[in-house]
């Protein structure tokens, strides 16, 4: 007891000194103060057991938080007032239970003057919410003696690794306060910031955990895992997200034990951290839903089993067989909705949630973290770089530089890109104006070329603003491969290259599913089990490489495995049984291999729960083609397979061939075009009642007369052998499109047709060089409507 009192006085003395030293504007010291205030709260709960004292410390800490958030000015006068407030707390501690109300009143007045309105009555128990220690009967900490969890040095040396000491458990039972939907919706802006931050933190946790598996015992990585939990805990407490706060808090404590060498970071802990990460993610997703759709969507997950699990681990036992597993959703998406069983009914059981509205705020984030979700939201690189510099210590990390990066609304960005696109078009229109083109003034010509340089620079910059590194998506694959290899008993080493390659942010989500599919495919069908690999003279551990790079105007993603490779014999058999290939047809291995992208094609012998249900690669191909990309596979039996996805760098621009049909012009996406030709008479056949076809490289392709399909009245050619045919391919179907003329290749900006969506056969429009609108063909639609 006296020991505790000493500790309290010591902290208070420290605080008093710090307040004297503080310079207005130096928020890092305020961060130290805040940490000290938290230590104080953690300690005095044991010490004086005085709710009033606790309330004072709590009020003081809240005042500091407001100062950090910029709600209180950090002026010399205010520091002076805070100093006086500290003196009053010291008094109160000295007097112990004999403390008088006058001191409390003085304290309240100091804080109120500084801009944190609080009354003596509040502190003296008028307001329970301030004086309550968060009830933690649900957390495992209770079973641990308090001093165990005090990283001793934290109390006196703020410059310790831990930014704060975990608080001791509340010994008094807080009275139950009604549950229901928490009041976290008060500050939507902060909440929005938190949600985004939380997702990034959770991602970084996952990446770091998996890295830790490779380098066990690396304390830096442990710290990298600890910190995001700490931040989530702090900010969620600050925002009254109690369940999230509790879970993050408990996990943080466990990790703290690891940091302090009290326990090993074994696979049990790693599994738990991953599971908790999934649970937290689903909770944050739920909060996001609430924010978007209203409080009735709130679900409070029952985290008791996870908390118990954490406790078990903390006590050094191996988890029981019944350890809660948060199943990852089958698609591997972030929504681990099923995590920790079904969410409990929306109403929170009052008993376990006996926390005042300030719950968790009892140990909020340290300075820089609390400042992070500030509405400005500045200083965070987009694109999921793992936050937190490696060296963290008790000193507040310097505040991130404003202006290093700012968040911009995606809509604004799209508007900018559109405007720039129009500028480029407008400029070429002006230049091509016959009158302007005739002016032979050297200055004008020079100015024009300068102008086009500027516009193309501008276009380039605008486009690049929409790009994010693909790292985020790649990082999610680490976890996927880990889970898959665990499940299948195969050893897989995932090698990633070029994760900083940039991709249009609108594509990131769309590319995720196909990638998951292909990674599954590689681990499931490609890599053999270790014993089989050894039999074939390979290393027992398989290797899957995930690569991204830019090539020309494309982004290329490669997935390579050194496994089994594709079995062309099997594929051929299957293709023949499905009538895709006639026996005796001469097909190259490459052609056969690429048959796996046909719908309903799967060569898996056994149907695992991973893949092989006969859906698979065709889904990948569809998704990639939707992004106007291409996917193909190369494979050597026994050596492995290489899947290559080629994507356009951006969705806003399409690379197309402009064709003329009569007086109309259409744009055909280059990715779909295989070749174009003037057909020879001998290759042209009409089948009575079945349309006409053209023999191209041994395959009979149906001919589609675009002028007929689109009702163009004045085609130049009605004889296919006079016209040009363009061989296109879409979802495995090849067709010969008959057009009058090829006008050239161009990169065009895609526009929608203003209110006319889903016009069959038309994907959108673009403004051509002469200012007219040209229609971009949607080949799936063209082929479908031609078939009718």
């Amino acid at each position: 007891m006296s020991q505790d009192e000493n500790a309290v006085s010591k902290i208070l003395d420290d605080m008093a000194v710090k307040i004297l030293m503080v310079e207005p504007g130096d928020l890092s010291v305020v961060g130290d103060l805040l940490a000290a205030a938290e230590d104080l709260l953690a300690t005095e709960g044991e010490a004086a057991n005085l709710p009033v004292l606790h309330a004072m410390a709590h009020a003081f800490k809240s005042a500091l938080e407001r100062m950090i958030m910029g709600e209180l000015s950090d002026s010399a006068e205010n520091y002076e007032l805070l100093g006086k407030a500290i003196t009053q707390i010291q008094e109160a501690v000295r007097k112990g239970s004999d403390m008088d109300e006058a001191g409390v009143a003085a304290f309240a007045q100091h804080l109120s003057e500084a801009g944190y309105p609080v009354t003596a009555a509040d502190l003296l128990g008028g307001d329970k919410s301030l004086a309550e220690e968060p009830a933690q009967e649900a957390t495992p900490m209770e079973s641990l003696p308090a001093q165990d969890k005090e990283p001793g040095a934290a109390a006196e040396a703020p410059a310790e690794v831990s930014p704060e000491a975990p608080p001791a458990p509340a010994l008094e039972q807080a009275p139950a306060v009604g549950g229901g939907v928490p009041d976290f919706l008060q500050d939507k802006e902060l909440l929005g910031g938190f949600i985004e931050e939380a997702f990034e933190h959770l991602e970084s946790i996952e990446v770091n955990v998996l890295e830790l598996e490779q380098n066990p015992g690396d304390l830096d990585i442990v710290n990298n895992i600890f910190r995001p939990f700490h931040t989530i805990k702090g900010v969620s407490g600050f925002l009254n997200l109690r369940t999230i706060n509790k879970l993050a808090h408990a996990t943080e404590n466990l990790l703290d034990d690891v940091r302090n060498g009290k326990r090993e970071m074994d696979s049990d802990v790693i599994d738990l951290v991953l599971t908790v990460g999934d649970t937290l993610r689903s909770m944050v997703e739920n909060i996001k839903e609430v924010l978007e759709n209203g409080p009735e969507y709130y679900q409070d997950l029952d985290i008791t089993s996870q908390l118990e699990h954490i406790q078990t681990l903390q006590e050094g036992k191996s988890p029981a067989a019944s350890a809660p597993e948060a199943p990852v959703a089958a698609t591997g998406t972030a929504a681990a909705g099923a995590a920790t069983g079904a969410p409990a009914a929306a109403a929170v059981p009052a008993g376990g949630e006996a926390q005042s509205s300030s719950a968790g705020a009892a140990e909020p984030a340290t300075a820089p973290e609390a400042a992070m979700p500030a509405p400005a939201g500045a200083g965070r690189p987009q694109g999921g770089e793992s936050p937190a510099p490696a060296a963290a210590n008790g000193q507040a990390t310097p505040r991130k530089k404003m202006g290093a990066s700012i968040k911009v609304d995606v809509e604004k960005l799209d508007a900018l890109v559109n405007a720039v696109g129009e500028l480029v078009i407008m400029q070429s229109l002006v230049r091509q104006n016959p009158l302007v083109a005739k002016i032979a003034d050297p200055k004008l010509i020079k100015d024009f070329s300068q102008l086009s340089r500027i516009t193309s620079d501008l276009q380039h910059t605008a486009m690049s603003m929409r790009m994010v590194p693909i790292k985020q998506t790649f990082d999610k694959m680490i976890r996927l491969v880990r889970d898959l290899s665990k499940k299948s008993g195969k050893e897989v080493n995932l090698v990633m290259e070029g994760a900083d390659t940039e991709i249009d942010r609108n594509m990131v989500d769309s590319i995720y599913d196909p990638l998951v599919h292909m990674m599954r495919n590689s681990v499931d069908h490609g890599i053999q089990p270790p014993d089989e690999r050894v039999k074939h003279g390979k290393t027992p551990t398989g290797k899957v490489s995930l690569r991204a790079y830019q090539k020309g105007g494309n982004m290329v993603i490669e997935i390579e495995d050194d496994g089994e490779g594709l079995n062309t014999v099997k594929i051929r058999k299957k293709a023949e049984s499905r009538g895709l290939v006639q026996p005796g047809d001469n097909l190259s291995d490459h052609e056969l291999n690429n048959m796996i992208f046909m719908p309903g094609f799967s060569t898996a012998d056994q149907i695992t729960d991973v893949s092989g249900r006969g859906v698979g690669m065709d889904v990948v191909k569809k998704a990639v083609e939707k992004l106007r990309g291409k996917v193909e596979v190369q494979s050597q039996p026994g050596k492995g397979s290489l899947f290559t996805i080629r994507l356009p760098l951006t969705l806003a621009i399409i690379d197309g061939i402009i064709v003329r049909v009569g007086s109309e012009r259409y744009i055909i996406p280059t990715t779909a075009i295989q070749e174009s030709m003037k057909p020879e008479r001998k290759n042209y056949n009409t089948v009575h009642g079945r349309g006409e076809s053209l023999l191209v490289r041994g395959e009979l392709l149906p001919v589609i007369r675009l002028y007929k399909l689109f009702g163009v009245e004045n085609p130049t050619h009605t004889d296919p052998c006079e016209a040009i045919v363009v061989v296109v391919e879409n979802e495995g179907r090849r067709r010969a499109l008959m057009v009058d003329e090829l006008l050239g290749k161009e990169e065009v900006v895609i526009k929608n047709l203003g209110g006319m969506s889903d016009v069959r056969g038309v994907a959108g429009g673009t403004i051509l060089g002469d200012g007219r609108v040209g229609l971009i063909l949607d080949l799936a639609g063209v082929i479908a409507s031609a078939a009718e």
Partner: protein
Amino acid sequence: MTLAAEKTDRRAGEGLQGVSELAGKYLTFTLANEEYGVGILKVREIIGVMEITAVPHTPPYIKGVINLRGRVIPVMDLRLKFGMAAKAYDERTCVIVVEVQGRNSAVQVGMVVDSVSEVVNIAGSEIEPPPSMGSSSESDNILGMAKVKGEVKILLDVDRVVGEGLLRQFEEM
């Protein structure tokens, strides 16, 4: 779109109540020999006819799309929409660009008309409810009939004519 909401109310009242809420400024134009008006607040701009790119698989009254300063907007021929005889475009032909509620956002649509007349201020007392023509959709397109200086002007409900015409185009195919 409170106007739309009000209109529904009005329809619910069988058009018996006054149509004074329709008072305001209207842009008037001619189609064949009739005078029409559209609420000035719906009008974005008036342009001459430019080259129109035909869009396949759309009803005949959707003439196609034009480039309006970098935006692609659909163009509808009101004569064809109302089942009148087509007329070759000349120098008097205009495209009135109106903004209407599309499927999920406001969209701009061009309406081809024979010629644009003027902007007139129409008082509520000058407006009568649309004549009842049975349940034909024609009367649905009309907000009311205005008598201005002895001339009848048909006040169009562009949200219905253009907005729904655009959305309905595929059902009519």
